[in-house]
């Protein structure tokens, strides 16, 4: 059973604020991913990492940035939040065969 944790679960924040969404996994998985999902819609990959010091942009352009300094930690940062960033952000990790294990997600609302 993969353990992957996202905090906060819900976040309501004003326009222009800097935010960091946290994602940690305890399985030692090399690969980690951030997906963005609007309610009831498909998931879009915005960032991924194959390992420490490796980060790549996903298929959907995003103003967010990520870092991978430790294997278990893959935070996502928005320097200046806008209402268009309102969405759910899902973190996932995988080892061999990229069977994804997802966290519970962070529901972000920017007012």
């Amino acid at each position: 059973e993969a353990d992957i944790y996202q905090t906060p679960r819900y976040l309501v924040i004003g326009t222009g604020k800097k935010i960091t969404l946290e994602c940690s996994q305890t399985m030692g998985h090399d690969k980690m991913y951030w997906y963005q999902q609007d309610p009831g819609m498909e998931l879009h990959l915005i960032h991924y990492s194959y390992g420490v010091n490796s980060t790549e942009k996903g298929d959907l352009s995003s103003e967010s940035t990520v870092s991978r300094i430790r294997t278990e930690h893959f935070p996502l940062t928005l320097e200046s939040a806008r209402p268009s960033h309102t969405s759910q952000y899902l973190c996932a990790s995988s080892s061999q065969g990229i069977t994804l294990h997802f966290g519970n997600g962070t529901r972000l609302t920017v007012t």
Partner: protein
Amino acid sequence: GIQVEQSPPDLILQEGANSTLRCNFSDSVNNLQWFHQNPWGQLINLFYIPSGTKQNGRLSATTVATERYSLLYISSSQTTDSGVYFCAVEYPQGAQKLVFGQGTRLTINP
């Protein structure tokens, strides 16, 4: 890029019914997965099934890679089966990242 199309988009059934969900993809893949997203937003991996058939309790899945489709079968549906079912494929091959379909929303009424 690859197109991943799921059908039907919505399905409403009574408890105890059986259902078949379909996923078509427009290019060759060697990795396909099915996920269930519950009403609270949690995504659970159901199957890793690049080809062949697998079964897990009341759920089973079949992928016919040569014809570029996969099917998810749910038998004797329960209200807890409600949610959105996604298929996802690895694309490009070897890229180690998944492209998701738009999902099938399943509602099981008591």
